[in-house]
Structures are given as C-alpha cells and as structure tokens.
C-alpha cells in the first residue's frame, strides 16, 4: 500500500472514531433547537427548521432554575468542605509525624474502591432517624464523604513535591505547624485545589443515585433528578424540552471544564505517568 493511501486510510479511521464520540453531542445540541413534533416523528431525518421554543418552554414553565440553584448550592458547599478537609488531612499525613499516619492514608485510599451501594441502606436509616431525609444537608454530607478519598490522594501526591527545606526554614523563623500549613502549603496548592474542585464538581453536579434516594420534594431537587420532569408516568417523553434542559444544565459543567481544562485532565492522570 502506498504511503498516500495509508495516510488517507488513517485519517478516515480517525475521522470515523472521532465522529462516534462527537456526533451524539452535536446532535443533542441541534435537537434542542428542533420542534417537539419533528423530534417525535423523524428525529434523525433532515433538519426542517430551528426554533428556540424548547428553551422558552423550559425557562418559563419548568423548574429548571430551581434545580440549577439547588445543584449549585449543594455543590458549592460540599466542595468547599472537601477541599478544606482533604488538604488538612493530606497535610497531616504528609508532614506531621505521628504513628498511625500510613495506616490512616491506606484507610482513606480504601474508600476509592468502595461501591456506594453498600452504604445506602444504613445511611438511609441513619438519616431517617436524624430527620435528615429530604434535606440538602444529607446530600452535602454524602458528597463530602465520598470525595475525600480521591482529594486526599491528590493533595498527598502534590505535597510530596514541596521541599522539606521550606518548612524547616519556616520553623527556624518561629512558625507553628498551623503557620506552615496556612502560609506555605495552602498558597502553593492552588493548582491542586483547582484540580480537586473540578474533579469533585463533575461527580457532585451529575450525581443521580444519592439525590434519587434522599430527595423527594421538588423544591429541593437537583439537576439530575429534574431531568425526569419531562417523562410522564406512561413513558411519554417531551424530547425537545428534555434536550433543552440537558443543554442548559450541562453548561455550568462545561464552563468549569473549559476554564480549567488542563487541571481536570491532569487530575485524571493522577501522576500515572511516572516513568
């Protein structure tokens, strides 16, 4: 096979594989601008005309802004605490000398492998007894707890790169252990904080399992639950509005993603590329 043909084959394969990944997204965006009747009869046929009626309908008649507000609230509060608690714990594990530090680190890492289903029933019972069912507090606690493992791992990995000399010099200057944390480690961790934020944000914003189980009231629903609004009991779906809702509610994640692109990807690799 000549080089030219090989090259064309290569690019055709690349384009094909790329299309598999991107076509659904492009289709989704365009579909959100099509009429419900078009979508109900010939969704993959040729485009007839574009309209913003789905968006208008969703914005005016649905609770999408309530859901966005709820998701935003729960996510922000949870993330603040995730960053705080995990960076503190990681600092102790990395720098403070105490006997059980390695054990505690392994303890947290274990959490990465635990499927959340194992905890559902007891958590439901616990929260029910504490009157926390159908509250945002329940969700926030859950999101914090289940994101600690990965966040602590990220911080510990990062803190490895902060030289001991920095803390030693600070101590000679009379710095306390708290000072070392607040004045040296925290300012240096900006990138890792962003990585932790972006990774946790995606997981929390898109959560379905916990919000499904623990939230019932419409006024408290988050974005994932809210998407089911357009599916009636009989399974009849209002596609246009569903797609418009999906687009509207994915925008925040996309903004975060595009703004912090590098941090998100580097978080994913987790130092996996050490030689």
């Amino acid at each position, binding site marked *: 096979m000549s080089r030219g043909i090989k090259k064309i084959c290569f690019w055709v394969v690349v384009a094909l594989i790329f299309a598999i990944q991107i076509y659904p997204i492009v289709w989704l965006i365009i579909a959100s601008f099509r009429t419900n009747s078009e979508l109900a*009869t010939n969704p993959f046929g040729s485009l007839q005309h574009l309209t913003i009626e789905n968006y208008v309908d969703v914005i005016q008649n649905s609770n999408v802004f309530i859901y966005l507000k709820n998701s935003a609230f729960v996510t922000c509060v949870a993330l603040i605490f995730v960053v705080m608690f995990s960076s503190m714990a990681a600092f102790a594990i990395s720098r403070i*000398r105490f006997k059980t530090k390695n054990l505690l680190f392994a303890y947290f890492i274990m959490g990465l492998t635990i499927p959340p289903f194992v905890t559902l029933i007891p958590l439901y019972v616990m929260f029910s007894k504490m009157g926390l069912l159908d509250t945002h507090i329940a969700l926030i606690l859950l999101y914090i707890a289940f994101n600690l493992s990965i966040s602590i791992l990220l911080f510990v990995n990062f803190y490895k790169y902060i030289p001991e000399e920095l803390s030693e010099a600070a101590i000679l200057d009379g710095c306390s252990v708290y000072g070392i944390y607040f004045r040296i480690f925290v300012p240096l961790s900006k990138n890792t904080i962003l990585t932790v934020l972006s990774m946790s944000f995606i997981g929390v914003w898109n959560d379905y399992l916990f919000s499904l189980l623990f939230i019932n009231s419409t006024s408290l629903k988050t974005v994932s639950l809210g998407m089911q609004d357009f599916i009636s009991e009989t399974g009849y779906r209002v596609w246009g509005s569903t797609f418009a809702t999906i687009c509207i509610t994915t925008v925040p994640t996309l903004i975060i993603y595009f703004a912090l692109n590098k941090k998100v990807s580097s978080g994913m*690799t987790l130092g996996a590329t050490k030689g």
Partner: protein
Amino acid sequence: MNTLSKKSAAFIFMAPAVLIYTVIVILPILISAGFSLTNWNGLGKMEFIGLKNFQDLFHDRILIMALKNNLIYILIVVGMQIILGFVTAVLLSYVKKFRGFIQTVYFIPSTMSVIAVAQLFNCFYSVTPLGLFNKLLGMLDVEPVTFLSDFDKVLPAVSVVEGWQYVGIYMIIFYSALISISPEVIEASNIDGANKLQQLFIIKIPMIKNVIAMNFILSGVGALKGFAVSYNLTSGGPSHKSELLSTYMYKIAFTNRNLGYGSAIAILIMLLSLIFIISINKTVRIDGTEDS
C-alpha cells in the same frame, strides 16, 4: 523538630476528614453487614436470622441473572473504555493538528450527567420514531431492532451507553502515558528498523503497563458502580434482562422495603469489588514492583 511532631496538631488536621469519612462511608459498611443478618423491613422489629439471607441469594433466580448481567456489563464497559480509549490515544499521538480540540471534545461526554446521556441514547435506540441506529440499519436494509425491549439486545445496549460516556477519560490518561515515554527509546527502535506496529506492541505497551493496569482498575471500579443507566433507561427490564446487582438491591431495599435481604446483596457487591481489585492487583502490581 518538635513542631512537626505535635500530636494535637495531627489530630486537629485529621479529625474532620476522618470523622465524616468514618461515619458516612466506613460505618455504614459495618452496619450493612449487620443488617444482612436480619430480616428487618425498616419499621417492625429486627429479627436476627443468621446467614439465611445469604442462603436465599443462592436460590434467587433474579439475583443470579443480575450477577451474570453485571459481569457482562463490566466486560463491555471496561472493554469499550480501555480498548477505545487506548486506540484513540494511539491515534491521537500520531495526529499533529487539532490535538487539543479533539481531546477537549472527547472529554465532554464525561462531564455530562449520566441521566442526560441515558436519555440521549434512549432517543438513539428508539424504534418509533426511527432512532439513529435503526436508521443506519435501515440503510443496510435491516429490519428495525427494538434495542431496549429485546431480551438479548437490551443489556449490551445499556452497557454501551456507560462505555461510550467515559472513553474520553481513558483516552486522556493513555495519551499522557504514551507521550511521556522517553523519545530516546523510540529513536533507538527506529534506528533498529522497527515499524510503528512493532513499536507499539513491543515497546510502548510494556512501558506503560502500570498505567494500563491502573486504568483497568479505574474502569472496573467505575463499571461496578453502574446503576443510573440501567435504572433510568430500562428499570432493569424487560424481565430483569438488564437488571444489575445495584438496581436489584435498590429495588429490594427501597421499593420492597426488605432491608435485610437488600443489605445481603450490598455485602455481595462489596465482596465482588474486593475480589475484582485484588485479582487485578495480583496480575500486575501497580505499586511499581515488577511481577516477573
């Protein structure tokens, strides 16, 4: 240096994380184990029945089907994510222009809610009106397939959704690993006359063995957590053909209110995860030591 040995400081720094994590993640696992030995329904009294729930598991036809389904689900999801992720990463490493753009776009599905992706595929799989896949089949003169109600097709159909959504993550991880292979090694193999395919299989793959193993674990653990696609798209139907252990447990515990039996299923899921992770770990150690 005593400043860094203060036990009180260690306590204060660790306490919040340890507290929340223990109460919300670890404690419930132990309680689950406890519940699994009872026949509690959440309201009445809790009776200790020993291992009866676990015995019942063995005779539960739906559970056995859910278990089989789960294994197939994991195979398809992990297979898709690792293979497609790796292939696209390799292809990407040979692409010079648009690399950043492709990476970005590939990652977008991973940022979407699982429900969003599920509903999207609901449209793709539909028969009336003709969904994407059936339209493509139509172009090949094949009869429309009811992907989501066909007994043999529903499980792969559901698995593909989750597999598709997260390919981007694995592509990015593989890609980073591939480009961090030192160029001298590639140079040397070029001089030795190796072609691209040989380079790939004889040099590159062995060099990123750790990353491949880690991705298997990540993907597998992720697939084990599969719930939303099956529950939301098909409710585990039809006739439990797309039922997963997780959806079955959810229904038993929260729809049927059988907390004892549901907990037993949960413990089973936990044990399976442990077995899975330990076996992957044994085949390729990921802590850096070689398995000769």
